[in-house]
């Protein structure tokens, strides 16, 4: 085989969503040579789907300050968020917004010319007082506007893009320094070694782990899989945010606004199910309560449809005029993806996986950290992570709306700042370890194995994985369900080792890409299932029927799952940078 092409850069960034592009821009503007590798064209990254907005205590509409934002984020995290990182993020938020404005993001305005801010759930004034208005938005396309502005700025700053290249694995030397990655060109299947003094993972979340998800097909946890295979543990993977009302079998969100307008859920017996689970709030109970109620109804055989695997959201009693005026987007989505007009018929719904709170553990500089001997957070030299694939942890057990765009921008920038300093002190590439290259190449070439050897198909295994995750690690969790899930996913992981693909061509071999993606998803699934099975409490998005209470004494700690050591734990960083700690309190709204 011909020698593998090699390219050298100061920094390799894997992923071209908001986190990756924010870091790339800062680095390119500082005259670092930056390669951004993305499996799709950068402006097709999942950041484009973020509609809500970005939190910052600008106080343009109502009184606000970063300290209240910090309190809300810690409370929202169910006290699992690291308070130093949360303080850093909330203090940095206004600057992050103004920077975006200078990059060309057209934030919606108030009549006085200031940036408009809308109220969102979980926002308060005065540490739990009146509703705050903290979310800055560019109409309903904030993520799109941010992504496009950052991409254009990166073109100006001459960032080098590898579009439609897939990253296989990180490359390391004997001392554990990360020195780049093996990637390949999806167009022609040719591998390239990117040698980099620093590598930033910014690959987004892993929503494709679940059968019903709001996430795009690209969200396959690629960076998370790469980290695990490089010996880095994943943190708090049991915390996956579900939205209660996704379109069943499809995944798209039906916003809470539909229930806010008077919509309600019914089971297969035609009963209004929420009356039994939340007699007062009924259909407007919090997301986790509604999600669990739907899952319970289905598990107990009261679902709707031929397989009794969804419930119905009724809006038809509201009348066509109200639906068209208040919920036009939902009406169009239902008509397109279900052929159902919600003004005439009920919508089949099921909880849909939305956001990966866990991820690659980092400190607030974006440096990836892991326990080494007695040190819980030893820095891995040369490796950084930012955005949904990282776990700083600012979202803890539950993310607040408007904090995800903020997270990617603040920590994309923070990682770049640290990398700039690192590059000043590490001016030369370290020599590449060929054993690491060979290992990555072996993974890449493993899929050349021919189908006549009788391996299972990748797509069938992917469907099984999603079903196992949904049934055993969705919103309904108890010891029995999770233990069975652990067994099933361990078996699936073994079977994947023998799977084969039918296409062995080099040109746009999407079968190979999907196989590599499934390996990443399987890694995420293992981490998620094991971490969820072990955590015997209910906190934020992790809700156990058999352990319904939060247990701060035993479980106010981060989970770490690695292939090498299984589960480990580390303490939550409860000490902020400059202010007093917020001690845990019951999370009631």
């Amino acid at each position, binding site marked *: 085989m011909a020698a593998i092409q090699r390219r050298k850069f100061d920094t390799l960034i894997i992923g071209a969503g908001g986190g990756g592009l924010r870091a790339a821009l800062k680095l390119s503007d500082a005259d670092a040579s930056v390669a951004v590798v993305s*499996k*799709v064209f950068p*402006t*097709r*990254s*999942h*950041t*484009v*789907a973020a509609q809500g907005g970005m939190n910052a205590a600008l106080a343009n509409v109502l009184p606000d300050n970063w300290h209240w934002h910090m309190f809300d984020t810690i409370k929202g995290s169910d006290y699992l968020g690291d308070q130093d990182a949360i303080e850093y993020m909330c203090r940095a938020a206004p600057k992050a917004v103004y920077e975006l404005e200078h990059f060309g993001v057209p934030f919606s305005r108030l009549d006085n010319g200031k940036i408009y801010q809308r109220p969102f759930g979980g926002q308060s004034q005065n540490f739990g007082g009146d509703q705050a208005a903290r979310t800055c938005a560019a109409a309903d*396309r904030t993520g*799109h506007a941010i*992504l*496009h502005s950052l991409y254009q700025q990166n073109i100006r700053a001459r960032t080098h893009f590898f579009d*439609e290249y897939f990253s296989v694995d990180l490359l390391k030397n004997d001392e554990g320094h990360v020195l780049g990655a093996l990637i390949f060109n*999806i167009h022609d299947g040719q591998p390239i070694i990117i040698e980099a003094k620093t590598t930033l993972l910014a690959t987004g979340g892993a929503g494709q782990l679940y059968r019903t*998800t*709001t*996430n*795009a*097909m*690209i969200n396959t946890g690629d960076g998370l899989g790469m980290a695990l295979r490089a010996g880095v543990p994943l943190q708090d993977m049991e915390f996956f945010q579900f939205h209660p009302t996704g379109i*069943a*079998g*499809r*995944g*798209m969100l039906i916003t809470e606004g539909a229930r806010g307008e008077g919509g309600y859920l019914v089971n297969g017996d035609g009963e209004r199910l929420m009356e039994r689970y939340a007699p007062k709030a009924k259909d407007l109970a919090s997301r986790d309560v509604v999600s669990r109620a739907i899952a319970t109804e289905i598990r107990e055989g009261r679902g709707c*449809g031929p397989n009794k695997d*969804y419930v119905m959201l009724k809006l038809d009693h509201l009348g066509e005029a109200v639906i068209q005026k208040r919920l036009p*987007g939902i009406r*169009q*989505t239902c008509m*397109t*993806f*279900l*052929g*159902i007009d919600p003004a005439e018929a009920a919508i*089949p719904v099921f909880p849909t996986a939305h956001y990966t709170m866990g991820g690659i553990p980092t400190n607030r500089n974006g440096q990836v950290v892991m326990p080494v001997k007695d040190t819980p957070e030893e820095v891995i030299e040369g490796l950084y992570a930012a955005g949904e694939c990282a776990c700083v942890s600012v979202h803890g057990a539950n993310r607040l709306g408007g904090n995800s765009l903020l997270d990617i921008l603040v920590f994309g920038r923070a990682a770049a700042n640290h990398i700039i300093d690192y590059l000043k002190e590490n001016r030369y590439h370290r020599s590449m370890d060929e054993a690491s290259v060979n290992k990555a190449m072996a993974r890449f070439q493993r899929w050349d194995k021919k189908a006549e050897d009788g391996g299972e198909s990748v797509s069938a295994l992917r469907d099984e994985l999603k079903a196992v995750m949904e049934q055993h690690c969705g919103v309904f969790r108890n010891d029995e369900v999770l233990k069975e899930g652990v067994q099933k996913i361990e078996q699936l992981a073994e079977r994947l080792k023998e799977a084969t693909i039918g*296409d062995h061509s080099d*040109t*746009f*071999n*999407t*079968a190979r*890409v999907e196989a590599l993606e499934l390996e990443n998803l399987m890694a995420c699934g293992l981490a998620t299932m094991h971490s969820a099975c072990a955590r015997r409490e209910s906190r934020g998005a992790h809700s156990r029927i058999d352990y319904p209470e939060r247990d701060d004494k035993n479980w106010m700690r981060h989970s770490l799952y690695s292939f090498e050591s299984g589960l480990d734990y580390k303490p939550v960083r409860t000490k902020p940078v400059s202010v007093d700690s917020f001690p845990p309190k019951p999370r009631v709204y």
Partner: protein
Amino acid sequence: MSEQNEISASQLRWRCRRGMLELDMLLNAYVEMEYDNLSAEDKALFLKLLDYQDQELLGFLLEKKEPSDVTISALITKIRSICNSKFNCMKAIE
């Protein structure tokens, strides 16, 4: 055109990977159900459609916006019709 004549199903399928689930589903449904029936011109036109930005494409496909290009507009109508037959029945929910 010669290069476009050779556009493979997998190349189109990869270009249908977008930042939004809705687009993934609609665009992939079109490729899965129609690729074998597409002429070289159809494939080239579809590739042209895929060059639009995600938000714009979603606006077209969910009928929030009308494309100014009539050939694109006709393609959108065709995609919507094909997706109707794929998605618009309760039986399709697995």
